[in-house]
């Protein structure tokens, strides 16, 4: 007997289970949710200066405007716990207070919230609010020397400064000093931050767009000094997060303030310009590097010194140097991070914090070193791959960067460049990607009803990445059942608390938790079956077929353990059963109806993951065409090859990685927030002038996975992919431009004027 493994859908490139809901408009995003009573609409009055005290406020005209219900300011909005308190909480669970003091922390910060019947009424009335701010000159990071503070910690748990090994003279035949800069950047999720809240005097109900539900509940409890029991947060669909929705932002606190004040539902949706100021962005970076190698191309020194701004009163600094510490073996590694407190809007995780911009600079500089040493950049990278983590000396659970580089080069056709058209240059670029993997405590439950329907529940979110789909696949796979017999309920604080989405940890952590829940449910079913089938072995395989439970007795000698890892591994392969006929039971006859639904909760924690070094890795290859007259860069091909453990759904994983590669193109070529240094405001806070890549900028994007399940990383064998696609993607483009033109641009993004000037200087020289 053989179980029909075609039903084993884990890993298969199936379409999103929520796809139809989304494309037919039935998936409701935060701003589309409704309470029984129609929500009033709030609109922000934004600060026109960066930092100072409100000395005058006049709201009468706005209050009298048509349709206006309230104008909230620090004078009447009611008490909140002071911003960023208590210190004992994390940045996602500290108070996000706003409108609770006359102090303004940054440009564009809320001065007032006008609440009216309609958006147009609120927006117009907001223009009638008059205010004066006694402004101080803002602190900004204008040069690397100004960043002198050592951050207490770095995002991802990295230490601010690391030094390992000893520098010798043997490996200094070739040396480079390379100072790179990357600009401020924004996550640019399609769905702006939006919240609709209701408060009945006791219970606060919130629909919002947030990546992590549990910390959002905590943040509201802290900010409003409410009991967590009385807070309900739902975020069933999210139109992209990219780090900007890890925590709650002003839209949420303002909507809740409005609801508390009026005891009615209030909706606040940030406009695109407001998103730039009222949600986090990434600070600009100065990355100064010293690298050396011997004449054979073996690396001696890797020094990477990062300087970035930190938003005042908000603890976040990114590990820009993480890649420099792990990607290549070196005699001596010295990586430091310095920050300066700045009067800016929140600075927080933005599309692969640390590695996105760290790799942009570091992998460019590595190319510079290789070229100066006269060694092919691909060969140079392969030559310097580490056996163990270069700093900690610990082993990697899996490490296939070398395979990625080698197989990738073959698939891409490294350095087999087509002949350029007249007036054009063609270049190839490569870059490595290393992204730390973490397993984060998470929980999910599985329920089985008497009809054989499985329901997955977790407060896990799906930010467009495919959580609904992979969780459905995991449950269906565990019971060899049809995908459509699984219902997945996510994004609701009443459900088992998960890690949420972020840091590339969502799928592996919550997926593993669900896998455990499924195992527990199977064990419970087997216990029940044992009463009917006393000879049943614990290795028997259970299959759900409609409302039937089918029991296959497996070859006991091949499966003698109940070890969870073994079970999961086995789910990947055909399950051989012995010759006895399967036994079929009607669920409703097997189990007393009062016991339905059967529910089990699975949890993962630190015991479920290795203490050795865990990284997802990959290699990016790019072909560009550069216009010799204008310096315009056109991408011809982006190819990536990645190793990230087991891939739970090849389609959603590929889509996510491709998205990262496209973001990488944005970082290399077009994206930059420009600052007004006098007012600490942004010059281009909209999608007209903050240039995210458009379809025409992106050519052929393809990728492959080198799939090796990593059961040391997570019980399900998966590692993070969310932030892997962008890591190194931009540097491969920068390196391709340098290959095409001989011009190295160290100031990102590489806009055409810089390339044109470089080409002219080269011709002139």
């Amino acid at each position, binding site marked *: 007997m053989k179980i029909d493994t075609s039903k084993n859908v884990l890993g298969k490139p199936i379409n999103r289970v929520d796809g139809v809901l989304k494309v037919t408009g039935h998936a409701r995003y935060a701003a589309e949710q409704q309470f029984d009573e129609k929500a009033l609409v709030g609109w922000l009055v934004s600060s*026109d200066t960066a930092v100072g005290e409100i000395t005058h406020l006049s709201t009468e005209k706005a209050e009298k405007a*048509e349709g206006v219900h309230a104008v909230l300011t620090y004078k009447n909005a009611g008490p909140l716990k002071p911003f960023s308190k208590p210190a004992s909480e994390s940045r996602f669970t500290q108070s996000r207070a706003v409108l609770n003091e006359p102090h303004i922390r940054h440009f564009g910060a809320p001065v007032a919230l006008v609440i009216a019947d309609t958006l*147009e009424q609120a*927006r*117009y009335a907001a*223009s009638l609010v008059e205010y004066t701010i006694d402004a101080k000159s803002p602190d900004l990071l204008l040069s690397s020397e100004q960043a002198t503070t050592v951050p207490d910690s770095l995002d991802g748990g990295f230490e601010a400064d690391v030094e390992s090994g000893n520098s010798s003279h043997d490996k200094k035949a070739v040396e480079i000093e390379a100072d790179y800069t990357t600009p401020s950047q924004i996550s640019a999720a399609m769905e702006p931050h939006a919240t609709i809240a209701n408060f009945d005097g006791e219970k606060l109900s919130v629909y919002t767009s947030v990546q992590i539900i549990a910390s959002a509940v905590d943040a509201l409890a802290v900010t409003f000094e409410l009991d967590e029991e009385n807070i309900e947060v739902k975020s069933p669909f999210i139109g992209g997060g990219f780090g900007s929705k890890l925590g709650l932002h002003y839209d949420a606190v303002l909507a809740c303030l409005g609801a508390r004040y009026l005891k009615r539902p209030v909706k606040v949706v940030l*406009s695109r*310009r407001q998103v730039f100021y009222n949600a986090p962005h990434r600070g600009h970076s100065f990355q100064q590097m010293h690298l050396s190698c011997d004449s054979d191309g073996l690396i001696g020194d890797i020094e990477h010194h990062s300087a970035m701004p930190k938003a005042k009163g908000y603890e976040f600094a990114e590990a820009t140097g993480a890649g420099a510490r792990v990607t290549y073996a070196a005699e001596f590694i010295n990586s430091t991070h310095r920050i300066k407190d700045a009067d800016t809007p929140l600075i927080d995780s933005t599309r692969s914090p640390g590695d996105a911009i760290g790799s942009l600079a570091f992998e460019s500089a590595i190319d510079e070193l290789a070229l100066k040493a006269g060694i092919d950049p691909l060969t140079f990278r392969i030559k310097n791959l580490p056996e163990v983590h270069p700093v900690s000396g610990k082993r990697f659970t899996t490490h296939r960067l070398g395979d990625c580089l080698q197989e990738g080069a073959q698939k891409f056709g490294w350095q087999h460049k087509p002949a350029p058209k007249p*007036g054009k240059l063609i270049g190839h670029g490569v870059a490595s990607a290393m992204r730390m993997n973490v397993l984060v405590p998470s929980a999910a439950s599985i329920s089985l009803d008497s009809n054989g329907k499985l329901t997955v529940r977790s407060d896990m979110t799906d930010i467009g990445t495919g959580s609904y789909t992979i969780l459905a696949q995991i449950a269906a796979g565990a019971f060899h059942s049809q995908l459509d017999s699984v219902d997945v309920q996510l994004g609701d604080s009443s459900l088992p608390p998960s890690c949420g989405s972020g840091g590339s940890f969502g799928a592996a952590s919550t997926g593993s938790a669900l896998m455990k829940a499924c195992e527990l449910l199977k064990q419970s079913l087997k216990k029940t079956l044992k009463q009917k089938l006393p000879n049943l072995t614990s290795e028997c395989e259970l299959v759900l077929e409609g409302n039937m439970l089918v029991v296959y007795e497996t070859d006991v000698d091949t499966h003698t353990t109940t070890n969870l890892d073994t079970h999961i591994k086995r789910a990947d392969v055909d399950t051989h059963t012995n010759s006895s006929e399967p036994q079929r039971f009607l669920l409703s006859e097997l189990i007393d109806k009062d016991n339905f639904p059967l529910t089990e909760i699975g949890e993962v924690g630190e015991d479920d993951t290795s203490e050795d070094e865990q990284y997802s890795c990959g290699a990016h290859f790019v072909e560009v065409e550069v*216009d010799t*007259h*204008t310096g*315009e860069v*056109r991408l011809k091909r982006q190819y990536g090859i990645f190793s990230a453990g087991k891939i739970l759904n090849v389609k959603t994983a590929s889509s996510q990685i491709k998205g990262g590669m496209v973001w990488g193109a944005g970082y290399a*070529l*077009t994206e930059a927030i*420009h600052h*007004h240094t006098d*007012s600490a*405001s942004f*010059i*281009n806070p*909209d999608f*007209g*002038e903050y*240039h995210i*890549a*458009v*379809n*025409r*900028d992106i050519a052929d994007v393809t990728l492959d996975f080198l799939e090796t399940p990593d059961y040391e990383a997570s019980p399900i064998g998966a590692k993070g992919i969310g932030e892997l696609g962008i890591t190194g993607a931009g540097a491969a483009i920068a390196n391709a431009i340098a290959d095409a033109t001989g011009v190295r641009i160290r100031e990102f993004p590489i*806009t*055409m*004027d810089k390339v*044109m*000037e470089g080409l*002219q200087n080269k011709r002139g020289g």
Partner: protein
Amino acid sequence: MNPFSVQHIKHTQDITGLSTEDRAKYIAGGTNLIDLMKLQVETPSQLINLSQWEDEQSITEHDDHYRVGAMVTNTALANYAYHKPSLSLLSQALLSGATVQLRNRATTGGNLLQRTRCYYFYDTTNACNKRQPGSGCAALTSMNRIHAILGTSDDCIATHPSDMAVAMIALDAKVLLTAKSGEERGVPVREFYCEPGSTPHIENILENEEVITAVIIPKQRHGSQYYRKVRDRSSYAFALVSVAAGLVVKGNRIEKVTLGFGGVGTKPWFPASAIKMLIGAEFSDEVLDLAIDAELADAKVYGSNNFKPDLLRNTFKSVLNSLYEHQCENDDYEGALYEN
């Protein structure tokens, strides 16, 4: 967005019966005006909605010209022009602008009257003489990557963002205007726009309550044509530099040159000095340099747009060289070159 009233017109003669307020604005596709109203940059008290204006929604061909109604959408005009070899340049210019969705709404008249995309004009917390006369110009001393190098003044360096208008200038089109009195007049697009001087809020020669009714494009030969738009991303971005060009050569001699520059001027730029150097000249790299030198003689740069003179020169020369090569091989050719 402040409260406003709306009036509608269906026929051109309805304009004469309008009771308009001081702060009235015509609205056609609304792709620019509505955005500006949301940002409180434009605060009209009254909108005169042209979307049901039946008389000016079509393009007609006449003996010596094409007449394009003011309400013809950018999409419709681009389609029409694509099929007329001597208007290929116009089609390319239109299709390089905005997005399909915007072009479906945007109109010929509205496109000519769109406002600048200067960052500081859009942000009401910044000084802008165009938005608020006398308040100053933040662009002069701040980031001015997208700003003009030609036709600038100490009060304003904002560019006119239209691609279509650059082509219209190159093709020597004329706008037809109808006043509330019913009076009509025609003005060459080359004379329609004003340089900012000390009054950057006055952008064109429209008198109070005049409305654009149509654009007249003369039927002329333009030879090999190309609208080359250089920008920070390959679509949905305004030109840093654009060159609208057509070239007819006989042997080596430049018989006719059609030119317009975008992204560099405070108005869609008609490079009269360059054309003067080119007409009748033997085609050569040197003459191209002389021509662009002549046009750039009065150019001023402002810091972050210092690259624009070089970018304009390089773009201009590469476009003209491509057109020349093409003309040499196909001397009867009429129509655009297309990127492949």
